[in-house]
């Protein structure tokens, strides 16, 4: 741990303020709670909202995992993990199972989360109605009245234009039958994982100064139409590395001739399966 900083970088008063916002957010699932976002030693877009949430809840006994697009080894994930290793001196891990706090950008791990774990999402745009209604006052009113008919306009337009609901990321959900919420830019593949998730899910938007939450075991429903039900992506391929047929796959270019292959986006899940397989082969 480096000297000259408070534990986990933020001062205690700021952390208390953020924890109050988190408590309120948890008490009103899906409701966006404003908070006084602090300057962080990272630019916006690097997950300053998520980092402030993590900094406010992390304790010395926690084990932190940080992923970006499912991977633990990208620049963004590495620097956030290092940030907390330095400022809080906490243990870090790449194993989903071992982590007590998982900060994430763009994915929910494939390994099912369990009670007691907390997943912290980095959120660029918290307001699901913003594309339709630029006025903050008006979107607040729409939330207050649960006036969400307009949100279905987006689904309607997708089907009219593409024949199906084309939204693939940040697919809007209704939390606990009440608040409309952006799940952050996770693939819609991950939406069903949020439904009655045993872990606590916290969402932090730094630039927009909002925190919201889905408490454990809360129903989360993806918007859809009766005749165009919500459906997740599926692949004909399997993961070229671990053979998984049920995880979210990324298509990557593997050589100069443009050869491609599909691999798990969740690197920990993938390597865990490979380790198990080679263990089985060795036995």
């Amino acid at each position: 741990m480096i000297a000259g900083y408070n534990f986990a970088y933020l001062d205690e008063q700021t952390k208390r303020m953020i924890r109050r916002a988190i408590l309120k957010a948890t008490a009103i699932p899906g409701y966006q709670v404003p908070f006084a976002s602090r300057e962080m030693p990272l630019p916006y877009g690097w997950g300053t909202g998520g980092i402030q949430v993590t900094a406010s809840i992390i304790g010395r006994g926690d084990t932190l995992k940080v992923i970006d697009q499912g991977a633990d080894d990208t620049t963004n994930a590495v620097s956030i993990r290092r940030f907390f290793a330095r400022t809080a001196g906490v243990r870090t891990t790449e194993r989903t199972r071992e982590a007590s706090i998982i900060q994430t950008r763009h994915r929910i791990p494939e390994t099912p989360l369990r009670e007691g774990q907390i997943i912290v999402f980095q959120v660029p745009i918290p307001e699901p109605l913003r594309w339709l209604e630029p006025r903050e006052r008006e979107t607040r009113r729409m939330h207050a009245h649960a006036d969400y008919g307009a949100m279905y306009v987006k689904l309607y337009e997708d089907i009219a234009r593409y024949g199906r609901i084309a939204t693939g990321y940040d697919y809007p959900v209704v939390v606990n039958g009440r608040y409309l919420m952006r799940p952050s830019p996770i693939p819609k593949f991950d939406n069903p994982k949020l439904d009655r998730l045993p872990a606590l899910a916290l969402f932090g938007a730094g630039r927009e100064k909002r925190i919201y939450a889905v408490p454990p075991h809360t129903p989360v429903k993806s918007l859809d139409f009766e005749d165009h039900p919500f459906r997740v992506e599926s692949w004909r391929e399997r993961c070229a590395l671990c053979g998984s047929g049920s995880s979210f796959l990324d298509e990557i270019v593997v050589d100069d001739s443009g050869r491609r292959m599909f691999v798990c986006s969740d690197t920990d899940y993938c390597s865990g399966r490979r380790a198990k397989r080679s263990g089985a082969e060795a036995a």
Partner: protein
Amino acid sequence: MSDAAALELAPDAAPAVAPPLLAARGLAKRYGRRTAMADVSFELWPGEVLAVVGESGAGKSTLLRCLSGQDEPDAGEAMYRRLDGTAVDVLRLGDVRRRLLLRTDWGVIHQNPRDGLRFGVSAGANVAERLMENGARHYADMRAEVADWLMRLEIDPERMDELPHTFSGGMQQRLQIARCLVTRPRLVFLDEPTGGLDVSVQARLLDLLRTLVRELEVAAILVTHDLAVARMLADRLAVMRDGRVVELGLTDQVLDDPQHPYTQLLVASVLPA
């Protein structure tokens, strides 16, 4: 019911036995020191079209805005009879319930289509939004209903996926009407619905409106400064001047035999020799 019984119930040959759909009493609104509306009272019967006429600045739009929840009057009440027969003062209903009413029972048609349509989404989505606001969640059913309503307003359903700005002014106005009527409201507020349109387009639109209003038996309050429009659409006519209703009666009676000196002037000025 026999004719005799009906006469007994309405001894003075009142126009209707049913209670009014909307009863406004003592409506008043000031902007600073300027009185925009003072002591306006009237009743509107189910399925009736009431036109509000008067020169610029008479307070017509103020009245409409106050009734439809777009503005708040300083005094007065407006009792609205809901489908279940109970009456509520819409001026004291509170924001949530007033918006619910606007969604389910009422419709507003603005003079400028920009105020009544979303220009960022397709024509079809504009109409479907009203259905979705009222709980519709079946895409194919909505498409069919939207197509039907576009046809009724003489818009080619083939164009339902186009953006409203590709439509002519008259088409935009008809689209706004489709969006409003698709949920079959019981009361519609119209402020100069044919305002920006040229005469031939106006006439066709009015004709359409007249047919639909009669067919759906929807009540309407129609603001216009055009007495010809009032004559064509309205059962009764309210004449406003300086924020007050100076004359109120059956449209033909008021126009053919105006009682108030101001109405006489108004009628004379628009019916040149």
